[in-house]
């Protein structure tokens, strides 16, 4: 087991290195002078030259990368062009709303999707199964922002139950905080529910076709026990895996959802930074999101130890 954990920990290092290289190269991939692009269209020659020196763009690219990485390792992501503060501080400021939105979404999605997938697999081919599959295709197909506007239109504008937009910090009281999060979380969870329910259903169908399910039935166990203790226990690994992979989807969704609902989180920050061509911030946010994604998937892989005894020994 320790071998497995150690191997998995070590295997994230090359991934993180390549992520760093790619994020670094992102800026260098641009045709033309990066300093000129950074400076914007209205910049003077002197300003461009100054940017070039301040970013170390006059040095060889390997050296630049070395400097950049050494800064990152010291927790320094540079200073934002637009907001004029350290990118790390900027990320810290914007973290709470995104974290709240993402965790809310995750909880809703898992609580809804896993039971749905289990029931659909149990009644494979029946009306419930078909309805769920239909819903899941719809969930994959409807754009997050269209769904957001439909919900805003019905729930906030027509019914007036919930606020249209905005965010309240948890320090401002739990109820306002919750009221502002309900619609965004539901919006964001739809695609996630579609994904997890589909994978739950598929891996449950696969597990239910296994020989040990027949053994369990031959033992005279009731269906509920066959379904949970035998099938779901074996379907757990693909389900948690897809929850991890879906985090990428969640991050993408956060960017759009925060934009529509005017939530001042990291997703909104990404869009603002791109529109302002604020490159240190763009790099910093992408690096941060990728890091989170890698760490989440690392934790998920490590959780296999709980779900599958074959890894434990």
């Amino acid at each position, binding site marked *: 087991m320790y071998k497995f954990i150690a191997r998995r920990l070590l295997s994230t290092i*090359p*991934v*993180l*290195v*390549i*992520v760093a*290289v*790619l*994020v670094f190269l*992102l*800026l260098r*991939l*641009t*045709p033309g002078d990066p300093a000129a*692009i950074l400076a914007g269209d209205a910049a003077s020659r002197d300003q461009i030259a100054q940017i070039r020196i301040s970013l170390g763009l006059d040095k060889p690219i390997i050296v630049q990368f070395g400097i950049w990485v050494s800064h990152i390792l010291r927790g320094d992501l540079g200073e934002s062009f637009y907001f004029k503060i350290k990118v790390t501080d900027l990320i810290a400021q914007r973290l709470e709303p995104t974290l709240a939105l993402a965790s809310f979404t995750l909880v809703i999605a898992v609580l809804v999707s896993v039971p749905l997938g289990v029931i659909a697999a149990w009644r494979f081919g029946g009306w419930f199964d078909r309805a769920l*599959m239909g819903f899941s*295709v*719809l969930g*994959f*197909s*409807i*754009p*997050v*922002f*269209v769904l957001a*506007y*439909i919900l*805003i*239109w019905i729930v906030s*504008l027509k019914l007036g139950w919930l606020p249209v937009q905005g965010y309240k910090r948890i320090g401002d009281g739990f109820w306002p905080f919750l009221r502002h999060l309900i619609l965004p979380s539901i919006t964001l969870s739809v695609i996630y529910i579609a994904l997890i329910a*589909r*994978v739950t259903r*598929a891996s449950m*169908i*696969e597990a239910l076709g296994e020989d040990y399910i027949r053994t369990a039935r031959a033992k005279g166990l009731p269906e509920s026990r066959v379904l949970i203790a035998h099938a779901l226990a074996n379907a757990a690994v693909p389900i948690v895996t897809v929850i991890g992979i879906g985090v*990428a989807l969640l*991050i*993408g969704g956060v*960017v*759009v959802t925060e*934009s*529509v609902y005017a939530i001042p989180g990291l997703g909104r920050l*990404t*869009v603002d930074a*791109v*529109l302002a*061509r604020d490159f240190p911030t*763009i790099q910093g*946010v*992408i690096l941060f*999101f*990728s890091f989170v*994604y*890698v760490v989440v*998937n690392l934790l998920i892989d490590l959780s296999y130890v709980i779900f599958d005894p074959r890894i434990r020994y």
Partner: protein
Amino acid sequence: MDADAFSVEAAGVRQHESAWRRLRRNWSVRIGGSVLVLLVAIALAAPLLGTVDPTLFDAGSRDLRPGMTGQITTLDGDTIPHRFLMGSDSFGRDIYSRVIYGARVSLSVGLLVALLALAFGISAGLGAGYLRWLDGVLMRFMDGLMAIPGILVAIALVALWRGSLTTVVIAIAIPEIPRVTRLVRSLVLSIREEPYVEAAVSLGTPTWKIMFGHILPNTIAPLIVQGTYICASAILLESILSFLGVGLPPDIPTWGNIMAEGRVQFNEYPHNVFFPGLFLAVTVLAVNILGDGLRDTLDPKMARRV
């Protein structure tokens, strides 16, 4: 085991039909395919469908509700009466024309991204699956690329390159490549273990012939399915980029741009968002349904998995 043997035989009976006939009998393929054909026809026939040039505007026809009649100024400066089926936006542009022409952008982006991602993914996947020295390096690279959420890669690339059809297509295709590569690589690795490939080796068939003659043809079905899904998610992502203002320039009629323009006045004029949103959702839905149908008929093994 006998029960199994029967189901295999029963399935075998169906396999005798050609893949084409099975496709035509599948309801998902029929529905998704027909809607898609209709959308392609609309996109191609856009000028014939009572539209005007989607970039035309008229200050006198701003913020019209759907179905109202107003006027529009042509490029020659003439003012002609026009019926705004889906209303107009705050510049006085015809939303109906913009939505219809927007289909062209969305469908071409979807198709081009799918082709591009497949082309690169297949080459990389075949390389990784067949050349051991390439495998490690290439797959680590793909792991790294996959660790960066695709939407962020696309946003950043478009922002750097400035939006045009080419840059948008490339930016959306790049994050899809690792997934195709992984799929092709795993297919190659499993197919090359098949006894019929080993038989070809002992028959003295050269490696390249085995690759293109035995292995590649057996990966086509899952790749077509994967391609459809990529097409659907590319259409979605393009509209998200446009909507966020980091995609194609705002004057180009894309569904995302129309919605981005309409969101400002969403409270009073929700149709500016809903009409393009409806088209977008229906298009993506049609492609996804088609994908599910193709998967069920062409790739039953995968159908059981997801």
